[in-house]
């Protein structure tokens, strides 16, 4: 019986051979880690525990209760919300606006514009942060120089908690427009011309066409962009990591940066894992909530 089973598996081995390498890597570095993260979030694993497993203790929910009292974590949650609430609508509105403008024409100029607006999306985030750090520099930065031409005092772009958050958002919006613009453009080009013609015959004004035809037909892509952008912004990390290291006064620390700092700068692996699970749960809740809202919507 067992022999028989082994034989059939040997005969049908090819599909398994094809999927094995990728599958093994995914299991090892994606599925197993999430279980490990869950388990160690209930322990006090740190650098010492890494060297000597017997010194690791199960501490129950202590990491999670400490998180609730940790003022830095509070700040990280607040800052992440701040980034999401301001950044996500800004990205969606500007990428949709630019897509509508670019969709206006079909000739070469518009293809060039598409490339220009897309460029920030594929440039290296570290290079971007380095360049923007220079632009934002209080003494020698271009922004303050331009402002000085119209007699505005030097603005400390990255040195004041609220302003620093806004400065990081501007940079992230600049980088985030490209991909979403492309998605909107693809959707816009999929709208049949007959809809617009019908509207024109009915004498609809431009804004009416936009509000009653274009936007409703873009509902699916707007939903998609909202979900992916929201998930991305909840994991806001590189911008504060490179430009402000979370400062000033933890004013720009995001949840993702908090997890990184706890894990790799303070080596509190258990505590960091607990933080990462909180982030994971937030992401799941937000995503499910959106799908729920979407379902209650009417279909066309």
């Amino acid at each position: 019986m067992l022999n028989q089973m082994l034989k059939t598996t040997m005969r049908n081995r090819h599909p398994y051979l094809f999927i094995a390498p990728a599958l093994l890597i995914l299991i090892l570095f994606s599925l197993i880690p999430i279980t490990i993260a869950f388990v160690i979030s209930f322990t006090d694993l740190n650098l010492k525990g890494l060297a000597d497993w017997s010194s690791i203790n199960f501490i129950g929910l202590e990491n999670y209760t400490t998180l609730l009292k940790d003022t830095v974590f509070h700040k990280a949650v607040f800052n992440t919300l701040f980034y999401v609430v301001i950044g996500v609508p800004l990205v969606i509105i500007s990428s949709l606006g630019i897509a509508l403008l670019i969709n206006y024409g079909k000739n070469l100029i518009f293809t060039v514009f598409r490339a220009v607006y897309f460029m920030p999306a594929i440039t290296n985030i570290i290079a971007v942060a380095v360049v923007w750090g220079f632009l934002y520099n209080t003494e020698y930065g271009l922004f303050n120089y331009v402002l000085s031409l119209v007699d505005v005092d030097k603005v400390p772009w990255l040195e004041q908690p609220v302003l620093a958050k806004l400065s990081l958002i501007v940079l992230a919006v600049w980088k985030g427009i490209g991909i979403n613009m492309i998605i909107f453009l693809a959707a816009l080009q999929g709208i049949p011309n007959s809809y617009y013609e019908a509207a024109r015959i009915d004498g609809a004004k431009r804004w009416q066409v936009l509000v009653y035809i274009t936007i409703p037909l873009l509902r699916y892509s707007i939903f998609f962009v909202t979900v992916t952008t929201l998930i991305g912004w909840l994991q806001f990390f590189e911008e504060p990591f490179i430009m402000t290291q979370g400062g000033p006064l933890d004013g720009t620390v995001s949840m993702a940066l908090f997890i990184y700092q706890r894990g790799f700068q303070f080596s509190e692996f258990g505590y960091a894992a607990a933080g990462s699970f909180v982030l994971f749960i937030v992401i799941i809740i937000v995503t499910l909530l959106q799908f729920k809202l979407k379902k209650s919507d009417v279909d066309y």
Partner: protein
Amino acid sequence: MPSEKSKHTFERWVVTILLIIGGLIVSLPFIWMISSSFKPESEILQMPPTLFAENPTLDNYISLFTNMNFGIYLKNTLIIVALSFVGLFFNAMAGYGFAKYNFKGKDKIFYLVLATMMIPGQVTMIPVYLLLNEMGLINTMLGIVLPGLAAAFSIFLFRMFMATIPTDLIEAARLDGAGEFYIFFRLIMPISKPIFAVQGILTFIAAWNSFLWPLIIANDESLYTLSVGLSLLKGQYANNFALQMAGAAFMVIPIIIVFSLFQKYIVEGFTTSGLK
């Protein structure tokens, strides 16, 4: 209808002017980066700043290789790019396995693959570090590359494309006595060129830009990538903006070149990957 027509031209001008203004704002950081990278250190701190370098110099770029180890970083980055193409190949194989075979538990396994897409990087970051530590792969090139080799999304796209290849073609090859791997290499891969092109470019960009894993796994400078080296440079030469800009330009310009050569594929790639 002359008025209708002139209204249309007017609108067109407004749209074009808006796009030009926006385009200038969007590309300003690039322009500033490139022009600043050719300025000598004295000129870059000058107020008012010059738009183009008065005494253009290549010193900053040379300094990247003499004062910093950008040569080593470049070599490491290129190794990572090369190895990530092995991953691309694994993804293609898996995509083919899911697209063209029926086997026990296929759907369940595929859902498992898709589920990995939902796990945020921050959650797996620490356990993967611990795993690699147990495997003795900390501070090795293999440790940097291995966790990112397989990507569910890429497998998904390969599956979608390869499902459209007619099964009759594969059956015919089998009747001619071709082995399964021979079929994959000599028949499936050539047919799948378009998806390989899109995925290949995206793989190149992602590997070229890789930052977080090299940062976490590499303890000594000999394994740093360009991104990690650049962030090190920002810390070490905090006030030498000309050098920083040269470092940034050195990372960005190859991407700009790749992008302008393959614009169509990249945009297509992001559209298909975005809409699914």
